[in-house]
């Protein structure tokens, strides 16, 4: 009886170990396949998302964050990419640097993220059509009647149209010129000036998301999520737009 129990235990242990190993192997294989598609020039949010998941499963958090950011750069409404990005941020040693927003801020940000480029383009068409209709109504409204309602409607649609245009312009600019980058070194010193002989002001850890404000030679001036600014070696960063 004892032998059976011991044998079963060993079998279960072996199976679990094999499964874990197979799982890691699967992710490596998937990563290779996905990397080939990426190298072929395909730019798809789902491709970036799956690349990010593979990197995260294989323990490369900085690249995982990078690919989730790339997925969101193309499609800001990619819920899974945002979820996994937030999860990795919550595990980051620098998580305290990220700002905590209040309720209204979170709500507005969620709405902004939900409107990806395609949704914004459709919204632009819709708002343009509504503005055209309300303008037409206003222009051809009987001269002897009060014009308050058409004026109000036209104003509202115009304001919304301007908002959509600004959001679309901003997102399109981000698509072309995204300055975000991810720290890839496990501990990268941040300097007050581009000079490694100075004392570093703080140590940045792997997978921290920064915004590149300026580049000078091998150095980049970066803004941290909390607003702190400093210089870091370019080779310690992975850019969202290479």
């Amino acid at each position, binding site marked *: 009886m004892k032998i059976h129990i011991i044998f079963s235990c060993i079998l279960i242990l072996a199976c679990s170990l094999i499964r874990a190993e197979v799982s890691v192997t699967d992710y490596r294989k998937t990563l290779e396949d996905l990397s080939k598609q990426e190298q072929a020039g395909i730019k798809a949010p*789902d491709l970036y998302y799956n690349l990010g998941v593979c990197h995260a499963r294989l323990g490369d958090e900085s690249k995982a964050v990078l690919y989730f950011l790339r997925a969101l750069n193309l499609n800001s409404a990619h819920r899974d990419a945002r*979820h996994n990005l937030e999860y990795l941020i*919550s595990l980051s040693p620098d998580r305290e640097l990220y700002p905590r927003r209040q*309720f*209204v801020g979170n709500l507005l940000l969620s709405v902004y993220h939900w409107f990806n*480029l395609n949704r914004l383009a*459709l919204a632009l068409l819709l708002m343009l059509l509504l503005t055209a209709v309300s303008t037409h109504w206003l222009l051809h409204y009987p*001269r002897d009647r009060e014009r308050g309602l058409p004026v109000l409607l036209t104003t509202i649609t115009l304001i919304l149209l301007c908002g959509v245009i600004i959001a679309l312009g901003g997102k399109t600019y981000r698509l072309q010129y995204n300055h975000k980058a991810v720290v890839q070194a496990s501990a990268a010193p941040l300097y007050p000036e581009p000079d490694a002989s100075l004392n570093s002001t703080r140590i940045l850890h792997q997978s921290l998301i920064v915004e590149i404000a300026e580049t000078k030679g091998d150095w980049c001036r970066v803004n941290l999520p909390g607003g702190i600014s400093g210089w870091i070696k370019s080779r310690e960063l992975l850019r969202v737009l290479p």
Partner: protein
Amino acid sequence: MKRSFLCMFFGLFLISVSAASWKVNASVNKMKLTMHEELQYTIKVSSDAPIRLDDPDPPVAKGLIFRNMMTRSSSGVSLSGLQRTAQYSREFIYVYIPSKPGIFTIPVQSVSIGSKIHKTPAFNIEVIDAPPGTTAPGPSAPPAPVDPLRWVPDPTEAYRPLGEVMLLSVPDRSSVYLGEPVIVSYYLYSTQSLGSFQLEDEEDFSGYGKSVYHQPSQLDYSRATYNGRSYLRALIKQLSVVPNSVGRIQVPGLTGSARVYDYGYQSRSLRSSDSFIQVLALPQSGAPPSFTGAVGRFSVTQQVSPKTLSLGDAVSYKLIVQGRGNFHQFTALSMPENQDFRASKPVITDAVNGGVDGTRTIVYTLLPQRSGELRLPEFRFSWFDSSSGVYRSFEAPKTTITVKPANVLSYFSDLLSREDPQELRALRPLKVYRNYHLYLFSLWFWLLISLILAAVGFSAFLAWENSLRFKDPVRFSRIRAERVLNRYFKEARQAAESLLPEFYVLAEQGLMAYMAEKFKLSNRLSTPEKLEQLANFEIPAEEIGRLSEFITRCGQARFMPGGADASALSQDLQTLQEIVRAFNSLERGAKKS
């Protein structure tokens, strides 16, 4: 009064100075030596107080040449019961070489400490000739001339330091309380830069738990003096050792191998020196009920934000523990029961180096259950303060927050408050990926936008024309008339160029429609009646006559057989152009007047 105090202090000072016991000894390593050997003369000063003493002058002895001098210091602290005993010693080692055979005397030496003078005994040293076949020590083959400043250490002698390369373990404290962490630093001392150093093993002993406090990635040398000798020193490792038993415990030992350059690289095995820590028990009495085992030097503060809020909003209550000690024993307590608040589970955030020093933040999220002035629950944390040796407690100051009635947004805070994700989402099962298509870069998108904008433009034009009818009817009529004339005139010109008799029909219709639009003539009137009406306007009779003739010509061409002569078409077209030009200029002239 002051004078008596000063006297008392001076007396106490003298007592403390005189209480320190001093011992001065002298010794030589050998009483008889050959011409090729060296002599070491050692003066050792020991005391139970720290020794601050200038180096004594080297003794002068005939037949012995002074070569070099070294110093060596050591100290030790032991605890017996509750009494702390310290022992300090310092050795001054003088190295001599004999200059000739014979018996020589090292005279009595006087060492003055404070107001006392200590005497050392004299030594008679016998120097004999070296046996045949022996050579002088050191790598230099020719024995002469002797350089008195060059010292060649003898590896067999006891005065030699631990070695040219050695590993020392240095606890930052020699006596701690049970549970209080000690940082043990392991330093590599060397007289020269090493090729590399490889850590091989850690030897553990009973009575403690340990974790890595700091692990340098490279050998970073600095100058340091040990036992009076200058070394290059590099930090190898720092361990955080937490004692879990009372008494004397030995700190972990490290072993490793160093690659030393000595006419070529050689590996040398090293083991760290033995070091001990005295672990004291915590006082049995006076431990508060909230004591959870935290020992160290801590300071605790609290932060409450916001202090004014609406019902439905949350309060963040932070307890911040800073300092040094066993942070892992500083557990988060559950929020005391309170009807006014609903509390979340505490969230602990650590910024603690090696679990020993830094900051631990314990965050509670409180949801007020009613509006009004509410008093926050009061916490009580206790720990053992190792610096003062007493138990200390933190009692949260009484804090009141103002909770206003709920606003609209508060009702939604629960719905939209997102917690941090707890797991990574899985791969999306896709085999083929296609480029993400953006509508913004599609043709149909911009066509639709152009269409909508064109529709708006057209609508605006119609609206403008419509408004012109009311604001400027004359201009509106003129524009309409010109439009009619242009349309007919264009068609008539095409007919004339094609030598078609339809020219006359189009010309007559166009001219009469133009006149009707411009001068507001009724369409029910016949052509002769319209011409009569034109006479009522300020139009020259000559122009009316020419128009009448052209209309008559059109009638003839339309209704008389052979009236539509193709050869006359070009001339009639020219006449029509002249009439139109004349009426246009007339209109402009009339407008001016």
